[in-house]
């Protein structure tokens, strides 16, 4: 009996010892795991805080830059307003007739003031585009309509220089359409036409040719001018690049027109280049500028790839119409976005102020607080002012008299009926442009390790 008890006790001691050792090992391992988790947590915390600091600094820097440009712009324009106004009134003759010499002096002063104004506008324009502060407002465009409009705009300049403007009709078939920003595209066409006209000899012609090349539209502006020298053909799209040093003065250009064209075409994911007409031994004088941009309906195919880096982005979809909202929400979820929904402006404001939202997709026509009022409130609330807003609406920003403020307060615009590809491309574009500038972490965000790790 005693032997049995001793044996049992001995076994127990052994078992307890083994358990104790096992527990010790387990404890040590648990401690190791805890230590590792602690270290990882501390590293994650440091990284998050560092990222927050970097974003904050970048945002502050952007704000300083914005304010500086805004102030410079204001300070330059204010005296120019008085100068241009006074010169304009004097040279118009409404203040009384002037002799020829005085009129000529006023003409010189006026045209140089206008040149200075154009220069300031172009510099600011270029700066805004290059820094992503001039977003595109994409919609479906009919190419020949834009070409005709640009040609109409430049007709007076062409007539003054006795240059003929010809539009070579598109190849037979459906009119060429593309998804782009009509105003910016017109700006490119007008810049190219204005250049071509200014460098064309009297009685020559400038031709505009359009066509499509698979998924791309191709547009050419062909002149019979002196031609760009071969050594300058690569650099004429650079800022302040002129073929002759005296061109800016003589032709009234700013030296920024082609840089702006390139910037706009690049924003449209296209390319632009110049060629001498005699490059292929044709013996023809002049230069041809060619631009090639995707017609964008196909851009839908590449949109999901672009979105890979946006998977962490949260989009707030605001629409009072349940069916429309659901369609958009499902589309975005399919493409990897985190999505929040709101059916009223008030609900949207509350969500935007309290949650991490990277972009707001907003319907304009809603009962109660309209989309328009919602934008106003968002932009006037500190916590939500920096969140980019993309409008979805049956109207386009150029349809109404409210064009200016509406466009200025939004970062993007997608027209209804909705084209899925366009919507995805626009979202990716706005998020890409605002990435790093608009904080990815909402202002009210506070670091919460437990919720982030769970």
């Amino acid at each position: 009996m005693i032997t049995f008890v001793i044996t049992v006790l001995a076994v127990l001691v052994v078992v307890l010892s083994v358990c104790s050792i096992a527990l010790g090992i387990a404890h040590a391992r648990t401690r190791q795991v805890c230590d590792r988790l602690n270290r990882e947590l501390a590293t994650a915390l440091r990284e998050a805080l560092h990222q927050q600091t970097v974003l904050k600094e970048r945002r502050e820097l952007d704000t300083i830059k914005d304010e500086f440009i805004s102030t410079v712009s204001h300070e330059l324009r204010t005296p120019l307003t008085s100068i241009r106004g006074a010169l304009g009134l004097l040279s118009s003759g409404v203040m009384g007739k002037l002799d020829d010499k005085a009129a000529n002096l006023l003409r010189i002063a006026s045209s140089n003031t206008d040149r200075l104004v154009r220069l300031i506008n172009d510099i600011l324009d270029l700066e805004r585009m290059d820094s992503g502060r001039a977003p595109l407002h994409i919609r479906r465009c009919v190419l020949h309509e834009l070409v005709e409009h640009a040609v109409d705009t430049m007709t007076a300049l062409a007539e003054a220089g006795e240059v003929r403007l010809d539009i070579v009709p598109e190849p037979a078939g459906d009119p060429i359409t593309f998804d782009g920003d009509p105003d910016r595209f017109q700006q490119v066409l007008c810049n190219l036409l204005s250049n071509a006209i200014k460098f064309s000899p009297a009685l020559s012609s400038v031709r505009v040719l359009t066509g499509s090349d698979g998924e791309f539209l191709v547009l050419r502006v062909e002149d019979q001018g002196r031609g760009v020298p071969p050594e300058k053909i690569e650099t004429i799209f650079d800022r302040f690049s002129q073929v002759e040093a005296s061109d800016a003065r003589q032709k009234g250009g700013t030296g920024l027109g082609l840089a702006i064209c390139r910037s706009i075409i690049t924003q449209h994911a296209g390319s632009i280049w110049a060629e001498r007409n005699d490059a292929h031994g044709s013996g023809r004088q002049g230069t041809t500028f060619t631009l090639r941009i995707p017609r964008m309906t196909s851009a839908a195919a590449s949109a999901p790839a672009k979105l890979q880096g946006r998977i962490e982005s949260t989009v707030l979809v605001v629409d009072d119409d349940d069916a429309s909202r659901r369609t958009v929400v499902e589309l975005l979820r399919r493409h990897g976005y985190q999505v929040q929904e709101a059916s009223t402006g008030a609900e949207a404001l509350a969500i935007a102020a309290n949650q991490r939202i990277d972009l707001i997709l907003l319907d304009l026509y809603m009962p109660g607080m309209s989309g328009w009022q919602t934008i106003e409130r968002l932009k006037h609330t500190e916590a939500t002012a920096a969140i980019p807003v993309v409008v979805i609406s049956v109207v386009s920003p150029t349809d109404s008299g409210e064009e200016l403020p509406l466009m200025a307060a939004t970062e993007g615009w997608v027209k209804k009926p909705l084209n899925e590809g366009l919507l995805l491309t626009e979202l990716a574009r706005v998020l890409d442009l605002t990435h790093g500038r608009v904080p990815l972490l909402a202002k009210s965000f506070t670091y919460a390790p437990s919720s982030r790790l769970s």
Partner: protein
Amino acid sequence: MRRILIIDDEEDIREVAALSLESIAGWSVKTASSGADGIKAALADRPDAILMDVMMPAMDGPTTFKEMQKSPELAQIPVILLTAKVQGVDQRRFAGLGVAAVLFKPFDPLTLAEQMSVALGWN
């Protein structure tokens, strides 16, 4: 004859804009050099429209406009803001104010009246 009130702290700009509207369009123009004086002038004269600068010391254009909206006598008078600030970030501040239009400096003195007429539906 249209009666216009110009509110701008820059004397030169007031003068050029007034001359432009008077000599090109034949309108009758009064001017004020601050938001506060502008409100007084508007109450006294009830102009057909107000052309107002955005950036003014003490009370800027948008603030003056909001003050005017509080007065039943002035709320009906259309206001056009005139600004030298063309940055999107600045324009955002004007969004939703309810002004009739925003025109940019430097304006063309020969077409200023025409631009105002278009914005105000006076054609």
